[in-house]
Structures are given as structure tokens and as C-alpha cells.
């Protein structure tokens, strides 16, 4: 089951560049939350702070608190522990190029020392079914390379890979921006199904996408969160003038 995320006074820097400023918001459990805003506004940085991917960059720095359920991710846990509970899907599909479809999905478990073959099989099947890829790959699981799938299939493979380690939160950083419309709609259907089991945070450039999949939407601008509310309110009656200008296409 998913957990809620409480973010308080989150600040992030890349070198001297203050990319996130005083972000405070509560992301509800088992819902999809969308983050929108123009390029460079900090939304990707924000999701990368939620699983401490941000700090893989040596010049990056973070202050503030992020709590997931009972876990304070910057105080009481190592980055590895955090990332086991928070799955991430990236902008470009990034399956492990030397691995089969099966091994890609099983990678998270295998690399963490889990090797019970029978339950691995079950986890792989369940994860691929959850990511709606099972029917397309089931005949050739262990022979077909993950890299030989189409872009949309690769992205669903990456989702299956993230689901296989049984996370509580799923972060998606523009998961459909490199995909065609058909693949995009498959990913969106998937988000719809998955949000009953996981807390989903999705960064998107596509405002229609945010409106379609998310209950809550946050609007980021220049490293600050301008507005965070129900998706319906953001798109029909935003409180802030800048939000309205952005969603009506006056800038961005």
C-alpha cells in the first residue's frame, strides 16, 4: 500500500543555483499527484529529492524534511533504504541493455540478494501484468533483450521493474514525453490502475495528461510551488494569476 508524503521547507541547490525554494506540501497516499510547470521550474529536481536521487550529483545539496509515513528520509534512512521504498520511472525508457526482459524486471530483487527462483518467477509475472506488458512478452521472457522492445514497451518494462521491488511510492518523471500517443495512453491507463495501490507522483509537461490522471496538481514556477490543490480546481478556478496564465497557455 502507498504512504502519504509530507514535505516541509524543502530547499535544493545545484552548486550555487538555488533550484528549489521552500517547498511545503502534503502528497496524499494512494492517489496520483501531478506536478506541472515550464521547463527548468524545479519539478524534476523536486521528485528526485523524494528518493534522494538528487544527491547522486556531487554538487547538489538539500535542506528541509521529507516524511513518508513514519520514515524521515533525510534523517533516519540511507539513500539505498529510501530508494527501495520509492520506485522511479524516468523520462527516457532506460532498461538494462544487456539483460533479458525477465532479468530487467527481476534486477531490483536479484541485485539486492534475493534469489528464490520460484517466487522471482511470480514477482516477474505479477509486475509485468501490473504494467500491462505481460501479454506482449510472455512467450519470450528470458531470450528477448529488454532493449529490443519498442519505446512504449520499454517504458512499461521500466514500470514493471520499479513495481517488482514492491515500493510504496512511484515517482514518474515525464514518463510519456518520449512516447507516441498510443503508448502514452497505455501509460496513462496504467497510472489509473496503479494509483489504488501506490502513491504516484507524476511530473508532466502535458496539462491534459495531468488533468486526466491526477487528483491533485501542483504548479511549479522558478523553483517555487505557486499553487497546490485538487486538479479540478487548478484547471477550472486557480487561485493564483500565474497558474491561470500558465494553464491557459499565456506563457511556458
Amino acid at each position, binding site marked *: 500500500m502507498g504512504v502519504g508524503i509530507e514535505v516541509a521547507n524543502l530547499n535544493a541547490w545545484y552548486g550555487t543555483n538555488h533550484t528549489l525554494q521552500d517547498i511545503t506540501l502534503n502528497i496524499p497516499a494512494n492517489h496520483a499527484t501531478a506536478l506541472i510547470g515550464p521547463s527548468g521550474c524545479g519539478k524534476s529536481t523536486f521528485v528526485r529529492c523524494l*528518493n534522494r*536521487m538528487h544527491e*547522486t550529483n*556531487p554538487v547538489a545539496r538539500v535542506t528541509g524534511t521529507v516524511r513518508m509515513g513514519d520514515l524521515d528520509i533525510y534523517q533516519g534512512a540511507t*539513500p*539505498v*533504504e*529510501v*530508494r*527501495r*521504498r520509492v*520506485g*522511479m520511472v*524516468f523520462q*527516457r525508457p*532506460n*532498461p*538494462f*541493455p*544487456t*539483460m*533479458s526482459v525477465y*532479468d530487467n524486471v*527481476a*534486477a*531490483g530483487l*536479484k*541485485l*539486492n540478494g534475493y*534469489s528464490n527462483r520460484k517466487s522471482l518467477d511470480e514477482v516477474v509475472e505479477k509486475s509485468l501484468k501490473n504494467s500491462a506488458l505481460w501479454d506482449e512478452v510472455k512467450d519470450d521472457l*528470458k*531470450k528477448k*533483450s529488454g532493449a529490443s522492445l519498442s519505446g512504449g514497451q520499454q517504458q512499461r518494462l*521500466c514500470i514493471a*521493474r*520499479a513495481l517488482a*521491488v514492491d515500493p510504496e511510492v512511484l515517482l514518474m518523471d515525464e514518463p510519456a514525453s518520449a512516447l507516441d500517443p498510443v503508448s502514452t495512453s497505455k501509460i496513462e491507463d496504467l497510472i489509473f490502475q496503479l494509483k489504488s495501490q501506490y502513491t504516484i507522483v507524476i511530473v508532466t509537461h502535458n496539462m491534459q495528461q495531468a488533468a486526466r490522471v491526477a487528483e491533485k496538481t501542483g504548479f511549479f514556477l522558478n523553483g517555487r510551488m505557486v499553487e497546490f490543490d485538487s486538479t479540478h480546481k487548478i484547471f477550472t478556478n486557480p487561485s493564483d494569476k500565474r497558474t491561470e496564465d500558465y494553464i491557459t497557455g499565456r506563457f511556458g
Partner: protein
Amino acid sequence: MQQQFPMRTRLRTIGDHIATFLAVFSTILVILPLVAIFVYLLLKGARSLNLAFFTQIPKPVGESGGGMANAVVGSVVLLVIASVLGVPIGIGGGVYLAEFGRGTKLSNAIRFTADVLNGVPSIVMGLAAYALIVVPEKHFSALSGGVALGIMMIPTICRTTEEMLLMVPHSVREAALGLGVPNWRSVLSITVRTASPGIITGCMLAFARVAGETAPLLFTALGNDFWSTNLNQPIAALPLQIYVYALSPYDDWHRLAWAASLVLIVLIVLAVSLVRYVTGRGVLKGAS
């Protein structure tokens, strides 16, 4: 458009032909020396190749016949020692440079040292092994020869490993870290594995290079006219045997030297192909 600029289209087609021709011509130039050497060796050496070459040791001066079985085995022994030493240290160093020590003073020092080491003449490597192993032990040995060759392999393997690891896309590393895989595990099981075809090529280049080296062996392995697989004794090697036989005044020995050159090249080609075949099949094996 084609109607409007017939001249330009024709020029472009001609340009295309010229470029294609130049590319093909260069390719032929690259392959030609190898083919020429191989054909020449076949012509000169194949006649002297017989079963005795692979089963007998050299006959004393004046007697005809004999073979180089001890040198073939000796070369294999030396190359195994060299690979056991050079491959792990070279790959380990490359992994450190690319994954753990990026931007540190130590890694800059290692990189600089490796590049200098790469340029050190091979005979100096032999002298180093002589000073480090032969002098304290007071006798020439297979071990010292293997070490000299192994040290020569390290810089090539180290730098190619580094280059190949740096070519692994950042997104692949992020994918592994995002799954909650510890960094060291991600490096070993994902990054190194993704780069493994290139790393293996680097190892093969280094291997093929030292397989033909004579100079580092002159005062380490020394050469041996008799059977020996004792690592503490002088050992025969194909390049050494070729060197001695080619400089000799005997026609018989010259023919054997040609045959030995052919065998050396074939052995290198076989070793490289075998490694490629074995590792190439492993590409889709399990994650651990």
C-alpha cells in the same frame, strides 16, 4: 528540384561515389598489411610446419629436425601469468578511475602514470622485472617474464576499461540506483556488465600486444632449449625462439623461425576468437 538543379544533383552523386570509394579504399589499406603478413607467413612457414614442430623440443646445432613444443607451451605459460596479473589490476584500476575516483587527485595521478607506462619501451619493462625479481632471486625465471608482460598489459586495460565505462549512459546507472541497489553493486553488476564487450576488447588488445613481445623476455624468461614448466626456471617463448633462430646462420633454423611466427599469429587469433565467442554468448545471462 531535380529538374531545377541537374548540375548540382550530378555533382552530389559524383561526390557520393568519391566518398564511398575513399572509405572502401581506406578499409582495404587497413586490412592489407595483415593479409600480406599472413599470406607471406603461410608461404614461408607452412612448409616447415609438421607434427614434430608441436611435439619435439629444439635439436642441438647441427642436427636437423626438431620442433618448438617447449616454446609454444612456454608462451602459453607466460601469457597466463601475464593475464592473471594484468587483467584484474587493469580492470580494477579502470573501474576506480571511471566510477569511484572521478576528479580526485589520486585518479589523476593513476591516469597520468598509466599513460606514461603505456609509452615506456618494452625493453625497459624487462629491465624493471629483471631488477625487481631476477636480481633478488639470482636466477632467470618464467615468473619474472610473465610479470614483465603483465605490467605491460595494465595501462592499456586500465585506460580502455575507463573509457568504456564512461560510455555507459548515465540513465542506466540511475535506473540501478533508483531500484535501491547500493552503488558498488550497481557498478559491478550493471555498469561493468554493460561495458563488458568494450572491456574485453581492451583486454584482447593488450593480450595480443604482449603475446608478440620479445624485448621484455630477453633478461627475464631468458629462453630455454629444454622442457620446463617450472615458474622458477627460465622458460622458452615463441618470440624469443624466433629472435634467436632468425639471427642464426642456419637455413634449417630460419625455416623453423618462419613456422614459429605463423604459429604465434594463429595462436593469438585463436585466443582472441575464443574469448569473443565465449563472452559473446553470455550477454543474456542472469543479473547476478
